[in-house]
């Protein structure tokens, strides 16, 4: 009675080779890339809210696809330049038409819920990118939706196309207090069966989650997409003990378990490095993992026998891994 599940590495890491077909900088600091297969032809379809994991020089970043997800020959991503980031966005902002990049196939972790009566989309800043995808798909498939979009004055990415796409279903705000008031008002009176989706800075996500909870929204109707693991706090230092070799690997605050393992010469398969894709799962023998990923189910977290080492850490001073 064994369950043999296949190694999925080949299918999951199937690589797309994409050429930059167009570059647009409509809003200062935000670059939109149009990507096509180098050899031409259709690209894989994807559910609204999906992302690509793109190779950006020596690291990989996840970027939301902004289309409606129907099979097409182009993908579009919009990337905010983060001068203090770790280089992924600067890499994207150096790309020019004709450059070739490699990326994963689309990965879905933020799809619309088909049974929702109404979709309340909430975006802050560059968090608009998955919401643009949601809005496009909602228009195409005639779903009931509205979009609340908070942005810095003059820095609203995709505002013109959103106005054309959404009409009066779009409400855009250049001031944070107005945006938060609108979000609260919407959460207070939308019909039962509405699902809310939020992407943006951590404080906006926290505001939506806390306000929804306060107003009695069931948690399964509240969906959040965080920008990246960069939003996670640096965490407490701990030690990883590798059961098979007996090696002890210190994991300082601000360094991920995955990075610490790699620096210690331990190869761990990985892809997104943001707690989404599930590739870097490592078995745990003892110690309590501090789960911070978006991948493991509640039951798997409770079991405590595996950890997604790219973002998760340890509750205890020592975490024993089956490595």
């Amino acid at each position: 009675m064994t369950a043999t599940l296949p190694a999925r590495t080949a299918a999951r890491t199937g690589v797309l080779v994409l050429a930059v077909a167009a570059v647009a900088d409509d809003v200062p600091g935000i670059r939109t890339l149009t990507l096509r297969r180098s050899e031409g032809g259709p690209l894989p379809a994807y559910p609204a809210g999906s992302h690509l994991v793109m190779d950006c020089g020596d690291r990989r970043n996840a970027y939301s696809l902004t289309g409606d997800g129907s099979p097409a020959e182009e993908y579009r991503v919009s990337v905010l330049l983060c001068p203090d980031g770790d280089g992924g966005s600067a890499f994207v902002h150096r790309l020019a038409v004709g450059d070739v990049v490699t990326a994963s196939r689309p990965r879905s972790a933020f799809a619309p819920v088909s049974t929702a009566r109404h979709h309340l989309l909430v975006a802050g800043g560059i968090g608009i990118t998955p919401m643009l995808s949601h809005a496009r798909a909602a228009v195409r498939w005639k779903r009931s939706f509205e979009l609340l979009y908070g942005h810095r004055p003059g820095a609203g990415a995709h505002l013109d196309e959103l106005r054309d796409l959404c009409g009066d279903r779009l409400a855009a705000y250049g001031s944070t207090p107005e945006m938060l008031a609108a979000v609260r008002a919407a959460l207070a009176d939308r019909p039962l069966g509405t699902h809310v989706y939020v992407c943006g800075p951590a404080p906006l996500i926290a505001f939506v989650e806390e306000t929804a909870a306060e107003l009695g929204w069931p948690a399964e109707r509240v969906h959040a997409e965080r920008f990246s693991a960069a939003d996670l706090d640096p965490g407490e230092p701990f030690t990883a003990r590798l059961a098979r070799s007996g090696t002890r690997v210190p994991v300082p605050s601000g360094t991920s378990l995955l990075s610490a393992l790699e620096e210690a010469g331990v190869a761990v398969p990985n892809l997104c490095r943001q707690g989404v894709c599930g590739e870097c799962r490592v078995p745990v023998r003892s110690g309590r993992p501090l789960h911070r990923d978006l991948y493991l189910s509640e039951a798997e977290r409770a079991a405590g026998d595996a950890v997604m080492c790219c973002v998760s850490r340890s509750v205890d001073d020592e975490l024993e891994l089956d490595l």
Partner: protein
Amino acid sequence: MTTALSSRVARFPFPFATDSYRYSTNVEPARRPVTTAAGGWGAGVLDVDDDYAAELAERRAVLAADPTRCQELPHMRVASWDALTTLLPELADTLPGTTSLDRVGDRWTWRNDRLGTARTFTVGDDDSLPEGPLAFLGSQIQDDVVLLDQREGALWADAGLVTFAADWSMGFDVGMRFLEVHGPVPRVHEAGVVQRAEQFLMRLQPGEEYRRTNWTMTVDRRLDTSTETYADWGRDRRLVVDDPALPDRLHLRVEVQHLIRLGVSNAVCFLVRTHVLSLRELATVPEWRQRFAAVLAELPDDMADYKGLTRFRGAAVDWLTSR
């Protein structure tokens, strides 16, 4: 007759790799050709054989007599369009000489000379395909289709067109959770097989395709052994035991099941393609005759009972081993 028969044997997906059978989550990537003692199968997702037109005529008759074999909860319409627009191009690739698919934006024209079908429709426009995209898909491929919606951390069997069920009922199962659908299957729950299968399916990324086989036995080449028509076929399992035509009437029934994460809708498309081969046909391949006799003889009683083999399995083993 001889060619049809040998072709049926040559393409048959004989499922047993050893002399005993237990349930497992035996999934593997799709599209990998399998070589058997008689030939091979599995290079594509769709398998169109000499029985194509006859089986689709049988499906039409079953649906005409019982329209409840096609079920679709209202939120599944996007998934039905997604299944159709994913699998029609697949069928066009499978039957290059006798079908054609012309796409101009969302306007699709499909011609299928094997069936005399010619239709033009607009993807997403329900009025352009009055019977619905799922029913139309079912008129073009031999597979039964179930569409699983993913939400609230589970999969739900919310749509399907199933005319060739092996003693189950789409009308009964529609709207159930994946775990509930598998409720009656012995052994798999204790072993965690169904839970693991559900976890595996929920993590399929857009466009990923896997497959597995399942099997049972059926009296005569009867594809419609759904629960609704039990009165028509149930007693044959008793009557066949003393019938001198037993080796021609008893069939090994193998389902090749494909599991495809549809890109646009995020639904899991579950395809069930049923192949049946009489004991006499099967025995033309000595390895298969010996192996199937061993599997049948060794199968635990509860599993034989669930599969409905109890009445005739002794007679089947006797015939297979007496040659």
